């Protein structure tokens, strides 16, 4: 089966530092891959390269087997319609209401009428269990958890083939975080999409992932089924999972 999304040998240098040094990942439809790793190891950069927000120095980004890095911008933009992204801070547009945020792609990229877009936005709000009475408020009036729900609704409204998630639980209390994790699992199942999430929260990784990959020093150092994470046989993974300061990975404080 071809991978929905595949990154091959992605290298990226930022401010003189080799952040990614040949990253290879792939994820198939209906599978959920979680990339774990410490702060600053390049998890976000990996995701940004996959989404086309950053241009890798070398390497390929294949979507359904086609290399998007070689496509002209307008073709790539069409391919990127298969992607949905949930940002760490929500990244909701402050100047628009919640429903306009959720329906943004429909209104401004797909030319759907406002009435229909609103209807679909409210329907998607119900899916992520965000009460429809919040449709007309500004995102700033929502709690952190509700902002994540709205961000997720915005990411899934066009039924993406690939859902990318950046630190789904950062800044949330454990109960809300768990609810968001459940929601992501549920949405991936319902949409049948491929999911790539990045996190340093092991509880979240265990819940969301079918497969876990660990990024360290610009490379994937381990990859395996989520269930095998506790018996990975990799000292770095063991240290990360156990959350120990001592081990092969030096904590940068």
């Amino acid at each position, binding site marked *: 089966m071809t991978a929905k999304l595949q990154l091959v040998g992605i290298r990226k240098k930022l401010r003189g530092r080799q952040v990614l040094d040949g990253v290879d990942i792939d994820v198939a439809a209906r599978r959920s891959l979680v990339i774990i790793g410490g702060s600053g190891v390049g998890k976000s950069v990996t995701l*940004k390269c996959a*989404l*086309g*927000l950053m241009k890798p120095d070398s390497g390929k980004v294949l979507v359904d087997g086609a290399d998007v890095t070689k496509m002209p911008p307008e073709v790539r*933009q069409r391919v*990127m*319609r298969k*992607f*949905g*992204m949930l*940002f*760490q*801070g929500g*990244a*909701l*547009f*402050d100047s628009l209401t919640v429903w306009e945020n959720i329906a*943004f*792609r429909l209104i*401004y*990229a*797909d030319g759907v009428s406002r009435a229909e877009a609103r209807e679909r936005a409210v329907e998607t709000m119900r899916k992520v269990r965000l009460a429809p009475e919040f449709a007309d408020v500004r995102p700033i009036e929502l709690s952190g958890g509700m902002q994540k729900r709205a961000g997720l609704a*915005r990411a899934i409204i066009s039924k993406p083939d690939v859902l*990318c998630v950046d630190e789904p639980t950062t800044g949330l209390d454990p109960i809300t975080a768990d609810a968001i994790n459940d929601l992501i699992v549920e949405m991936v199942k319902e949409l049948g999409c491929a999911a790539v999430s990045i996190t340093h929260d092991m509880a979240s990784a265990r819940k969301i992932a079918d497969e876990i990959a660990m990024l360290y020093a610009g490379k994937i150092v381990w990859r395996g089924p989520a269930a095998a994470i506790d018996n990975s046989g990799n000292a770095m993974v063991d240290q990360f999972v156990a959350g120990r300061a001592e081990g092969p990975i030096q904590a940068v404080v």
Partner: protein
Amino acid sequence: MNPFAAIGRAVLAMLAEVGRFSAFTGRAAATCFSPPVFVGQFARQCAQIGYFSLPVVGVTAVFIGAALALNIYVGGARFNAEQFVPNIVVLGITRELGPVLAGLMLAGRVSAGIAAEIGTMRVTEQIDAMTTLSTDPFRFLIAPRVLAATLTLPILVLVADIIGVMGGYLVAVNSLDFNGATYLRNTFEFMEPQDVILGLVKAAVFGFIIASVGSYQGYHSNGGALGVGRAAPGAVGGAIGLILAVNYLITAFFVE
């Protein structure tokens, strides 16, 4: 450290910045004049940039017109030329002070506002989010602002021209014993269409500068609140410098 190397690095950095800014404004201008145009965003920016700037532009114009009348009266009295107050007020306001002062006021109000808003959107990943939602941030954020500023600043300047002349008129009639009807007749008989046109051309160019410098600074800001804090004054300084330089160039071009 080699001083020549330091100077060279600074010059190269400046040239690179000029190049980046030119590419940015080129792309902004191209998206302004190609579909799709987000009409709602454009209308919102016209209100934000044009309508809500009316008070500051109006207040500036009325007081500058009034002060100009007083100064010309005092200066003119030195060689018995007091009667030229209306002529010089209208010339000064339409050709120079109307567009330049409106431009400078908007460089403060609008450039900084655009830089802060787009800068905040950049550091909170809203611009990245827009890209992932298949919408070009240039088209949605920058083109409506650039277009709105380019089109509304001439209207603001036209209003400033009228209010500025009125400021001069009020002072001339109330404190300098001019006859109201004569003052207005002298104003309109002396003024030529090209005076106003020069001012409006300047205004359109200044509008373009104000919005594109603000957008550029915001779009390229990074590093959280600190980055946004740097973008806003950077936009004001850049816009003011460019407006003054371009003002001279346009004036020189028209005079020739």
